[in-house]
């Protein structure tokens, strides 16, 4: 077993300061990896608590107040502290500069500042939890959040406000890096699709996040200084908050899914040894999703008292935004056609993504369709839909990406059998958790209910059983990946024999990534050129 005796970015400095004051985008990615995993564990704990509570219709595990705080914290932690930063801040931070042939991000200091701001936001959320938690739901709808709630809304609002800046700084860093630091020869249409997806996601981060920041601050100002912008007693519009909130929060779900789609394109290309079919269509569909994503926020408000005509406008636009996602899935299928497919762990996660994301996307059509949404709005049908996209899509792609680039990040391979095993367990556990929720949703079980009528119990018991399998499934990788740090097989620079700049440098890569700036001469993913 060859020893890793070279100098690389991990052993290029020891001691806490070399990590907490690092400017190296790869080390910052590791900082994000560890903290994001901790937040995921905390959010997951709340999820398990919720599922246990819903095991019985009587709601006798915790009080209503505590249950409301649990699902609120589950929402806030998972959305703002894991799903939005996960793939961009961990995989994006690590790989983007390498993939475009740069030595680091455009603004390394901003990159580190974004991690500190992310932790500061997390601190505010912990303080809010310590002081009693918040029970407004992760959506903070007014007038409950601004006038009637008596829980820690202001501190949590500040936590979300601060974390928003971490997302803005990451997005800004990506945009400038991709625009100005591509290696010579790396034209826009030679960029890996991973970079295209992160470019589109960064556009949303930069254009959308400030709107939720000001909205959250206005809610805090209304609670602190009676600036009653959302106060219906003064004639304020009870729906204005929802407009401002969803203008960001719907594009936010595209911030989560676009990087996942970027990871997918990389996995499908490498493990079927074929260039992505219709490269330019997949790249431009990322941009189309980013732009169209900003036009559709009203489909969260079909029954909110919004005007019927606006409902029709948002419904047709929501159908339009579904088309680019469909194009991507069909192009991935076409890439598999006549490929040379090897079912290693990342590819199993990729297949899991295609399966679950397709179901998530198709159920999205149910919600864009006005008449069905009137019935299923705010029921478990919606909970199941967005979990299929966020957990089925984003987290499957995230785990696939972690496994695919693990040899590059740590220089060691993960155990192959355990990898496949945990992927299958997660896939089974996931479907058992969320398929019953579609059924109980259409039956009319509203979301955010502490207790429910008896006839929904069996479906909820199934869902809780699935959740425990899913919970175990997520813990297995934690063990064997940590195990692999010490005992994993040493992976050379290119264990998958894949194309792409990140596979041309040693793993783990040196701090400088490349000595001198690489020259790019060939297309992205040009497998199979030995024929020509």
């Amino acid at each position, binding site marked *: 077993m060859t020893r890793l005796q070279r100098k690389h970015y991990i052993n290029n400095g020891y001691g806490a300061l070399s990590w907490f004051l690092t400017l190296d985008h790869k080390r910052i990615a590791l900082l994000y990896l560890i903290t994001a995993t901790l937040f995921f564990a905390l959010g997951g704990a709340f999820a398990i608590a919720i599922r246990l509570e819903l095991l019985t219709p009587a709601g006798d595990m915790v009080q209503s107040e505590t249950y409301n705080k649990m699902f609120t914290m589950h929402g806030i932690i998972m959305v703002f502290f894991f799903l939005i930063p996960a793939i961009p801040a961990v995989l994006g931070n690590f790989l983007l500069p390498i993939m475009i042939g740069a030595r680091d991000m455009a603004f390394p200091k901003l990159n580190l500042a974004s991690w500190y701001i992310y932790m500061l936001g997390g601190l505010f959320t912990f303080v809010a939890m310590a002081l009693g938690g918040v029970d*407004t739901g992760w959506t903070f709808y007014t007038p409950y959040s601004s006038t009637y709630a008596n829980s820690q809304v202001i501190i949590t609002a500040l936590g979300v406000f601060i974390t928003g800046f971490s997302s803005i700084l990451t997005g800004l860093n990506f945009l400038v890096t991709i625009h100005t630091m591509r290696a010579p020869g790396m034209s826009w249409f030679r960029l890996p699709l991973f970079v295209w997806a992160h470019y589109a996601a960064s556009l949303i981060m930069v254009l959308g996040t400030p709107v939720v920041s000001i909205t959250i601050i206005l809610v805090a100002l209304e609670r602190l200084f009676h600036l009653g912008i959302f106060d219906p007693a003064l004639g304020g519009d009870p729906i204005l908050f929802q407009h401002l909130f969803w203008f960001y929060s719907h594009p936010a779900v595209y911030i989560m899914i676009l990087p996942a789609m970027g990871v997918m394109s990389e996995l499908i290309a490498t493990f079927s040894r074929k260039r992505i*079919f219709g490269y330019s269509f997949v790249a431009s569909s990322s941009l189309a999703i980013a732009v169209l994503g900003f036009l559709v926020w009203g489909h969260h408000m079909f029954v909110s*008292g919004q005007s019927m005509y606006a409902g029709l406008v948002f419904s047709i636009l929501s159908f339009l935004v579904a088309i680019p996602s469909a194009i991507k899935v069909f192009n991935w*299928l076409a890439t598999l056609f006549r490929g040379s497919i090897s079912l290693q762990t990342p590819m199993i996660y990729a297949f899991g993504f295609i399966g679950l994301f397709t179901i998530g996307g198709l159920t999205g059509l149910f919600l864009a369709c006005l*008449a069905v949404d009137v019935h299923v709005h705010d029921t478990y049908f919606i909970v199941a839909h967005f979990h299929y996209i966020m957990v089925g899509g984003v987290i499957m792609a995230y785990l696939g990406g972690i496994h695919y680039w693990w040899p590059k990040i740590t220089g060691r391979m993960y155990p192959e059998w355990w990898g496949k095993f945990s992927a299958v367990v997660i896939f089974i556990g996931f479907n058992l958790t969320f398929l019953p929720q579609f059924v109980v949703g259409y039956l*009319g079980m509203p979301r955010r209910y502490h207790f429910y009528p008896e006839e929904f119990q069996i479906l909820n018991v199934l869902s809780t059983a699935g959740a425990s399998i899913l919970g175990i499934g997520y813990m297995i990788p934690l063990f064997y990946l940590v195990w692999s740090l010490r005992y994993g097989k040493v992976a050379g620079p290119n264990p998958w024999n894949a194309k792409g700049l990140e596979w041309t440098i040693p793993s783990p890569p040196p701090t400088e990534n490349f000595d001198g700036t690489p020259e790019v001469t060939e297309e992205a993913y040009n497998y*199979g050129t030995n024929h020509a």
Partner: protein
Amino acid sequence: MNSKFPLFPEAASSFAHHVDTLYFFLIALSVFFSVLIFGLVLFFAFRYKRKPNAEDPKPMLGDLRLELTWSIIPLLITMVIFVWGGLLYYHQLTPPANAQEIFGIGKQWMWKFYHPEGRNEINELHVPVGRPTKVILTSEDVLHDLFIPAFRTKMDVLPGRYTQIWFTPTKTGTYHLFCAEYCGTKHADMKGTVTVMSPLEYQGWLNGELGQDRMDKTGKELFKQFACQTCHQDQSLSRGPSLTGVYDSMVLLNNGKTVKADADYLRESILKPKAKIVQGYDAIMPTYKGQISEEQLIQIIEYIKSLKEPQKEVN
């Protein structure tokens, strides 16, 4: 509510089965595409399994025709769903003119319903089968949402504004009624039942409880109690505009605009009289905000609605 383990909700309103048919169409569509995509993925996975030290396959860059087909076909399908859903939505949001009106008030963690005939009920709603019923809703505090799964319809309940929900029950029985917009600690407890009765039973139930008189009768007493008639009389020189037949009529304001005198307008004119002033009258009406409760408001509005023929005995 009867079978122990239902997998599909009961269809108990006129548009319930329309929504269900659309729902089944969407399920069929989803099953078709899921099976197509899963099948292709699994088939390709096994058909093109990587053989040991095989050469990389020939690159296939892309094919515009294929790209167009799988963008246009999904677009057409989605447009079909959009039109079908949109028409049904329009139908769901426009109650018929002859709909019977019931008033509903959402208050933190309970529902109160007021039948014009005077019967009030908490967390329960009795409606006759076969008659289109419109529930006019408002909230006294935060957002709520009246959701009746068996009728396949819901509508948010907003503070400071009326919203409406309508349905035509087609099956007698008792069905769930939920609050579907998060409204605080006991959001899960803010539920009740909708009981659909035959018209005869409903009539019997209506005047079953004695002593409570019709809503507009209570409204008339409130009208006198708050001395509204001192200004609102039918003579031409009365200080306030005449209210006979004003409901749902077009009112010319002093800023040249005309607005429809619907429930929202009447409610705003009582709580914030100076917001909209009728042409030819000056802004002298005091606000009743805080003195008249939501309940009394809808009773007064019900009384104003009943002022069709010229008043005879208003003293």
